[in-house]
């Protein structure tokens, strides 16, 4: 199967500094790929480069289309839904309004989509009229993911969904993400510092260090690798 997203020799810049130095990454269609690495490795910058939020060089191809020089909103409309670091929910708007915004690029009324999201995340249904800013961290993460799904994307990009959340909630969220991947047939590109959980769920994994891919392959292989175990899995 052809990869739905391919990065070839991609460099990414934060302002004037080059922080990602020519990496190759591929996300198989229907699969889940995870980018691992410590703080400062370049994971988030890579995601931002994909969505046109930072300057980049090299080839980024999504579903056969080059993403070079497209605006962030155009890339979103192509079918990439990015849940950024820190959720990015509209804290001043209600839960329902947040979801409706996710449906902005889709024709037709968003109601059916919203109902389906409440199916995945019942707690959001209970809180539909509340301000997003009043939700707990875990609920906001769910809202952010739900909003991304409202875009009916082909690729879901998640930047550190476990950040700042209690382990129980993280497990719940990842379980839902896995369920969504299967039922909605969405490809997932995941950035995580929580390596063990990510490697359990993902198909492919890449390890980034200071802007270079130092290891890549099937997630199981990386999970069994002794160096990874020592540095990132803690045993």
């Amino acid at each position: 199967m052809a990869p739905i997203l391919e990065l070839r020799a991609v460099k990414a810049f934060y302002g004037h500094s080059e922080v990602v130095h020519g990496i190759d990454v591929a996300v198989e269609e229907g699969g889940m790929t995870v980018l691992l690495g410590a703080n400062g490795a370049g994971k988030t910058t890579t995601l931002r480069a994909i969505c046109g939020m930072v300057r980049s060089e090299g080839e980024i191809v999504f579903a056969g289309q080059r993403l070079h020089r497209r605006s962030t909103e155009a890339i979103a409309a192509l079918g990439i839904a990015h849940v950024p670091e820190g959720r990015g929910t509209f804290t001043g708007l209600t839960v329902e309004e947040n979801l409706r915004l996710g449906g902005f690029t889709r024709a037709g009324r968003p109601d059916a989509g919203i109902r389906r999201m409440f199916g995945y995340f019942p707690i959001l249904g209970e809180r539909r009229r509340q301000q997003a800013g009043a939700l707990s961290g875990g609920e906001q993460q769910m809202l952010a993911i739900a909003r991304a799904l409202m875009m009916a994307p082909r690729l879901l990009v998640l930047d550190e969904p476990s950040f700042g959340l209690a382990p129980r909630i993280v497990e719940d969220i990842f379980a839902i993400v896995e369920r969504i991947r299967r039922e909605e047939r969405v490809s997932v590109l995941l950035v995580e510092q929580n390596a063990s959980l990510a490697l359990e769920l993902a198909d492919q994994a890449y390890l980034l260090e200071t802007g270079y891919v130092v290891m890549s392959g099937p997630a199981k292989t990386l999970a069994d690798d002794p160096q990874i175990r020592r540095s990132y899995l803690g045993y």
Partner: protein
Amino acid sequence: MHELLQQIFSGLAAGAVYASLALALVMIYRATDLVNFAQGEMAMFSTYVAWMLVNAGLPFWAAFALTLAVSFLGGMTIERIVIRPVENAPVLAAVVVTIGLLLIFNALAGWLFTYTLQEFPSPFPDRTLFGALMTTRDLGVIGVTLAMLLLLFLFFRFTATGLAMRAAAQNPESARLCGIPVGRMLAIGWGLAAAIGAVAGIMVAPVLFLDPNMMGGVLLYAFTGALLGGITSPVGAVVGGLIVGVTENLVGAYLIASQLKLTVALALIVLVLVFRPNGLFGAAIVRRV
């Protein structure tokens, strides 16, 4: 007592005009973090457009509608062409651009239409109601303003574009990730603000008489009202504008003659701000540590 009520009511009518312009200022501030110092001159220019249309023979409300449409397009164009280049520049550069825009519009109006005061027709008959408590003109101004506010509320609350604009103003990056064309939303915001300004100008022109410097004082009061209400709050803009209008009238009637009226009114409002430095309804400017 009767006179007090009269003053309050005519203050409300003036306040409605300030409230409209204040709302335009708040809309642009929420979207771009910028105070558009040229809002008054843009409104003045729109009013001249209406004046030309009326003089050309169009019935008043047709001229009104056409002016709003033209102003909307004009506002959008200005955002795209004049403001866009400095949107990512330091805020001060954008402020200077709006000041430059103010000068350009003022000078253009003076050149095209001269500085002679012109009469501007009011669509409302000139009668007094309820035993000289208020005039139909004042009532009309308040009515038009309320209608406009209602339409705006419905637009922002219940339409997809309105929601997208609110989102783009709150969090442009997240909005882009949702596929919302933030640039276009900004342009629409400026267009709406320009149209609102046009309404304010058309409502006030019959009273102040039309000339290129007509909106200077109005802008100052509108700015004051917007801040009094809280620069981030549309409701605050309206309430603030109304309070400023009433205050200006009462100060002028009971406290001091016209020369220092402006100073005293401003001083009173500054005093309020000392106790509520973010305005009556404004959220504190949150700082991420």
